[in-house]
């Protein structure tokens, strides 16, 4: 007697991002086992990320190195300079990288922290004399050469923060607990006026620690240790500022991962991505773990981390990117909302050579690579394709004890102009999957205000492809997936309908 087909409709598959922490067969089908080079687009669909459109054309100064840092300097007069670092140099420009390293200033490392303060850009790196740039100076200048400056090797620091009318620096070659603050509105005067310092070595709530990062948030000076957080109130008067809160067991392991998202402060701890507001509210309870769904995976990657991480917050794209250059990996956390467990939806961008990020005032996200500076735009990485991949969690059709015989998979795909789509399915967690390829139609979308619309032609909208592919094989747990090369056109997965016959009980 014929059995009716059972249907599992994966609407907006991977809407909740990757989940590698829970059991695959017990997962919500809105999660994904794999979501590579994907984002959650504005319609809540799993979509391919944008690419890296390199704008640098002349990178002689950079040599074979990559861009370690990108920073946009701007002042109250509207002057703007894009600084980047790499190849032991400080460079300006985006299309043509120009060496702006001061004369007789030797650099052997590229872990700069560049901050804007009072119409100046300040460059700090551990063990190096700080550098200063302003429109009036006209060039990157040693801090000691700036008139009225007062700086010693104590301020040759690793971390710098511009906030509360002062420069705050910490982490020289011999000490990681003394925070120095400059005179009021004078970022290069660390000895006169109301300048000073505070040694927080005795303030850690859980033993010894060292300062890894500083942040200004909600009127508080946030001092991040590797395993602790100190929150100082009244930092406008540094000599009188006092602890208002401390957090033990949670810290920041990389100063470049701190991003202020307006209502909260995100940072990378040794066990994942955290938010300060939640941490303070919940005193480091696991609920504040924003990367809980990829926690083990992320911790594994962090254990391999030897070079600085990078991050960027883009409100335009609703994401927080966490780059791990050592692993050629970027985690993309979608900030539209949190899941039931308090975490952000997350996707991964593997096999990318994105080494640094920055966002300018216009909302452009800059990407630093070996090719120079690019922007987060287009749908290829410097004219090279990348693979968009999705794999569902294990599907049991409500009864893992019975055999499922897949009959059809009917994906609904948006975009992907003339791309080959490879659908895959596998049974019982096998790494060997059955595949089926098909090509979507050709349609180059032209949107209002973009590309060809204003020039020659426009389309009615995105190309929508619905295919019904026959499947083979059987098993108790079914995993389906899709992958395609993204090479200039976006693609998103709107829906995936899986039809199967339910067989006998095993």
């Amino acid at each position, binding site marked *: 007697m014929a059995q009716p087909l059972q249907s599992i409709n994966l609407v907006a598959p991977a809407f909740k991002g990757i989940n590698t922490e829970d059991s695959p067969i017990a997962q919500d089908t809105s999660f994904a086992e794999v979501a590579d080079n994907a984002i959650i687009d504005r319609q809540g669909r799993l979509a391919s990320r944008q690419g890296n459109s390199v704008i640098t054309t002349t990178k002689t100064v950079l040599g074979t190195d990559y861009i370690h840092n990108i920073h946009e300097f701007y002042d109250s007069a509207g002057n703007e300079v894009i600084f980047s670092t790499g190849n032991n140099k400080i460079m300006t420009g985006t299309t043509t990288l120009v060496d702006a390293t001061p004369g007789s200033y030797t650099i052997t490392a590229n872990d700069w922290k560049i901050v804007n303060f009072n119409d100046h850009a300040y460059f700090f790196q551990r063990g190096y004399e700080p550098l200063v740039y302003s429109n009036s100076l006209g060039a990157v200048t040693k801090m000691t050469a700036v008139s009225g400056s007062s700086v010693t090797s104590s301020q040759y620091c690793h971390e710098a923060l511009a906030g509360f009318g002062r420069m705050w620096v910490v982490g020289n070659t011999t000490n990681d607990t003394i925070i120095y603050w400059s005179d009021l509105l004078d970022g290069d005067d660390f000895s006169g006026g109301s*300048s000073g310092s505070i040694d927080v070595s005795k303030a850690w709530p859980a033993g010894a620690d060292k300062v890894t990062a500083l942040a200004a948030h909600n009127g508080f000076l946030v001092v991040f240790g590797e395993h602790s957080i100190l929150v100082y109130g009244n930092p406008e008067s540094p*000599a009188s500022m006092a602890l208002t809160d401390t957090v033990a067991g949670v810290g920041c392991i990389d100063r470049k991962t701190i991003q202020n998202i307006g209502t909260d402060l995100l940072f990378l701890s040794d066990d994942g991505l955290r938010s300060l507001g939640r941490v303070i509210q919940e005193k480091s309870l696991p609920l504040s773990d924003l990367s809980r769904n990829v926690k083990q995976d992320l911790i594994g990657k962090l254990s391999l981390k030897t070079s600085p991480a990078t991050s960027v917050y883009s409100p335009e794209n609703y994401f927080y990117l966490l780059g791990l250059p050592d692993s050629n990996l970027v985690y993309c956390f979608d900030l539209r909302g949190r899941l039931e467990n308090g975490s952000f939806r997350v996707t991964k961008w593997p096999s990318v050579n994105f080494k640094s990020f920055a966002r300018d005032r216009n909302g452009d996200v800059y990407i630093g690579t070996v090719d120079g500076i690019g922007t987060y735009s287009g749908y290829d990485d410097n004219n090279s394709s990348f693979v968009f991949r999705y794999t569902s969690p294990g599907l049991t059709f409500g009864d893992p004890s019975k055999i499922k015989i897949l009959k059809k998979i009917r994906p609904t795909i948006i975009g992907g102009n003339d791309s080959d789509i490879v659908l895959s399915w596998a049974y019982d967690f096998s790494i060997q999957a059955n595949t089926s390829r098909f090509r979507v139609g050709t349609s180059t979308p032209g949107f209002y205000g973009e590309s060809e619309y204003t020039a020659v032609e426009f389309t009615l909208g995105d190309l929508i492809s619905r295919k019904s592919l026959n499947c083979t094989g059987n098993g108790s747990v079914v995993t389906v997936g899709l992958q395609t090369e993204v090479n200039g056109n976006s693609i998103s997965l709107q829906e995936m309908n899986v039809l199967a016959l339910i067989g006998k009980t095993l």
Partner: protein
Amino acid sequence: MATTFEEMVTNPASNPYTTGTVGGSSSSGIGNFLGGLLGPLIGGASIAGGSALTKSAYDRLGDIGEQAVLGTTVGDQRIPGALEMAQSALDLSQFRPFTVTSATGGTFGVKPPTMMTDPVTGQQFMSGTEATLGLSPEELALQKSLFADATTAFQDVLQEGGTAAREQGVYDRIRAVQEAEEQRRQLALEERLASQGRLGVTSAMYGGTPEQLALSQAQETAKNQAALMAMEQAQAEQLQQANIAGSLLGASYIPQAQMINVQQAAQLFPQLQQQAQLFGAGQYGETMMSGLEARLIAEQARANLLGGIGSGILGGMFSPVKTDTGIGSLFGSLLGDIFG
């Protein structure tokens, strides 16, 4: 040992100036006298006899005058003359050394001037009156002790750097009292700063935190006040020490002053003795002079008598008178009536 006036009065025999009775009569003396007087009359011629009596009377007056100045011996009794009596009066009125001894053993003595020889020139000279003041051993020990204490006290007062050392000492003691509270406040502030995570604050404006600056200012103010107090205290103590030293020095002279007081109180007795001495010397002189005067009068009378007799004899010799019983019986009855 000099003989006092009282001894001379009560025991005349002890008077070195008296060798016999003054004005006494003796039959043997009378006989000698008459023999000597009448011999020339009876055995000589009447003229010659009268002249001789007159001359004898004259000589006697001369002798009496000489004896009044130089003295004589009467009946083995030495009668001093005016010269001797002046000397005796001088000796009797000579200052008598005396000694005053207090109840605590101190002594005060005065020695009369003595003849001394200049050791350089060899000339003799009369020393001045020597007064000596002596303390008992206990008083002397006390005086030495007080004097030594006064010396030590003055040395302490005037010791170079002594005030500074005392200032430091007082300052240290004041600070020792203050430091306990300061330490408590310091610890309280440290605890507060630690709870606020501000222990390691260093600022160009305050050095540390404003609270630390305030506490440091309070501590420094306390130190300043302690220093000023220490200076004032040290100076007050120095003044007190000087007063004590002065008191000790003054006290060291108290036994001596008390001895002087005792001596002054005892001055009455040497004065009384002096008055008695002077009175006795005066009495002695007057008495002796009265004796001399009496003797002089007597001798004058006797000389006058002899002179009268001589004149009578000479007058009778040259004026014829009736003779009944002879000259011998006349002279005999006459002299017998006179000398009886």
